[in-house]
């Protein structure tokens, strides 16, 4: 089996009296694609934020490729070669597509190489026609795609995506799926997602969160047919 690239032990996050993430143990192997699902407030976004350094967990530890990163800042984690996309599009609106991607490329490459890498990604993601347009002028789907470009240009070995398909048209989702599969050839990927249809189309292994805990972890088909999971989603008692 491939090496473990991400694991957490007893990851716990409390906000005042609320336990948003409760003693989560998690493992992810190289080039694995994993979806995190669960109803609103299940703790999947908190988990995501703790892993990416956007929040510091109250207890527990995060280990990436054998390095403990629990108290690291997001930029330190990103510098390891981890690509991160947050829930809302997080891009630089008054800069062009090229400039956006170039900034990401420049982090890991000298200026000349950064130019080349940027061009490559723009071609790969079919953004050529809008490369000079400012992000602020683009449609939602295009912005999401550019943000994936920002993630991809760094050649990550671990990619964390928070609701990448939210608010996108069917066509956009399809293109997104392709890109994710392409990324998955070299990187392990975690996707936090609501959209069951999208999950079915992309995932094999799924981790279900409920009330801050991992409810179950299994193949997507078995998870979908599991009565407990169904109840959780429909809001009935588990």
């Amino acid at each position, binding site marked *: 089996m491939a090496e473990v690239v991400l694991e957490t032990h007893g990851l716990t996050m409390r906000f005042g009296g609320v336990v948003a993430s409760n003693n989560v143990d998690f493992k992810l192997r190289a080039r694995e694609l994993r979806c995190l699902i669960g109803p609103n407030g299940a703790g999947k976004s908190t988990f995501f934020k703790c892993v*990416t350094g*956007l929040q510091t967990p109250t207890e527990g530890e995060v280990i990436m490729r054998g390095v403990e990163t629990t108290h690291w*800042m*997001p*930029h*330190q984690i*990103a*510098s390891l070669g981890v690509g*991160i*996309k*947050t829930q809302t599009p*997080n*891009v*630089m*609106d*008054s*800069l062009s597509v090229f*400039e956006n991607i*170039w*900034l*990401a490329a*420049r*982090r*890991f490459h000298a*200026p000349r190489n950064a130019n080349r890498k940027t061009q490559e990604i723009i071609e790969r993601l079919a953004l050529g026609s809008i490369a000079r347009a*400012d992000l*602020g*002028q683009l449609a939602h789907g295009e912005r999401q795609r550019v943000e994936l470009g*920002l993630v991809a240009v*760094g050649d990550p070995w671990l990619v964390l995506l928070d609701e990448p398909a939210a608010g996108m048209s069917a066509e956009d989702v399809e293109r997104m799926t392709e890109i994710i599969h392409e990324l998955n050839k070299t990187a392990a990927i975690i996707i936090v997602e609501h959209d069951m249809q999208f999950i079915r189309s992309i995932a094999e292994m799924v981790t279900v969160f409920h009330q801050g805990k991992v409810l179950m972890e299994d193949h997507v088909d078995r998870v979908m047919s599991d009565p407990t999971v169904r109840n959780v989603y429909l809001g009935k008692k588990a």
Partner: protein
Amino acid sequence: MPGSLSKDAITIILVTAILTWVMPLIISTYTLTVLIVYGMLGLSLGLIWGFGGILCFGQAAFFGLGAYTYAIAAINIGESTVPMILAVLVPAVFAALLGAMMFYGRLTDVYLGVITLVVTLILFKFINSTAGPQYVIGDARLGGFNGIPGFQTLNIPGRPDDYIWGDSYFYVCAILLALVFFLVSALLRSSFGRVAVGIRENETRISLMGYDVRARKTVLFAAGAAIAGLAGALFANWSEIVTPSLFSLGQSAEIIIWCIVGGLGTRFGPVLGAAGLAYLKFLLGQQTMIDNTLITGLILVLFVLFLPRGIVPALASLWKVSFGRRPLGRIPQHRRMRNRERING
């Protein structure tokens, strides 16, 4: 930014040459000198605010620190070269420490504004209460409210008796401003500058790309302070006295007003805003009909309401609309950028 650095350099040289030739025919060089100094001060805030998104309410602190450093060092050393260098270094180091304190504490927005404001107030109050004879640095009495007069002014390096003053001082200042302007252009064209603009646009994204936002903001903040410090030293040489009013909130306010009126996110805007408004103030002092404070206030309000992007960007987009290839597309961008500077409180 369109164009290239070498093109920038040529433009800067041409514009400087023309202005230093034409302007003295209209305005006295003595007044022009201080307009240049203010222009440099405006540029220092324009750099960190317009391109780095750091709204500093205390840019005057670095200006004053530069001026006082120069005055104190000049009294102790008696030759102006080392004091000039110190006047750039001391504010830069001070800003680096202050910036590190703020940015590593993840302070942003108004909170950053409050800290810079408070630090300026502390410096002001401190300097203001040093009238007693016990406040001495080397041979220099700090002088409190009355300030420090009578220090060595700029001389040809190594020759303390050959003063640079009058017209030649004007040319020195003009060349220094051109040089600083060029360095700022170079900085903004470098990867560092482009990342800085990225930070202004979206701090989280830049840190998710793997850049250490805190360190970069600190460096940019220090660079702005170094420029303000240089401006302070030039000011000290011009006025031949330094007083605590250099540190005052009013001074900080003026710098912010210059940037707003001239135009944020441009290099030339703050310089123009500073020189223009300072000259306006100078002219207003020659009339007695309307209170000058009232006019300054009115200008600021009207600009925020009707021309929130400032003169230079407005002219630029007017130019684009009239002659440019590119349609209006870019215009709403800046407004959006400033809209985002709200608190999530």
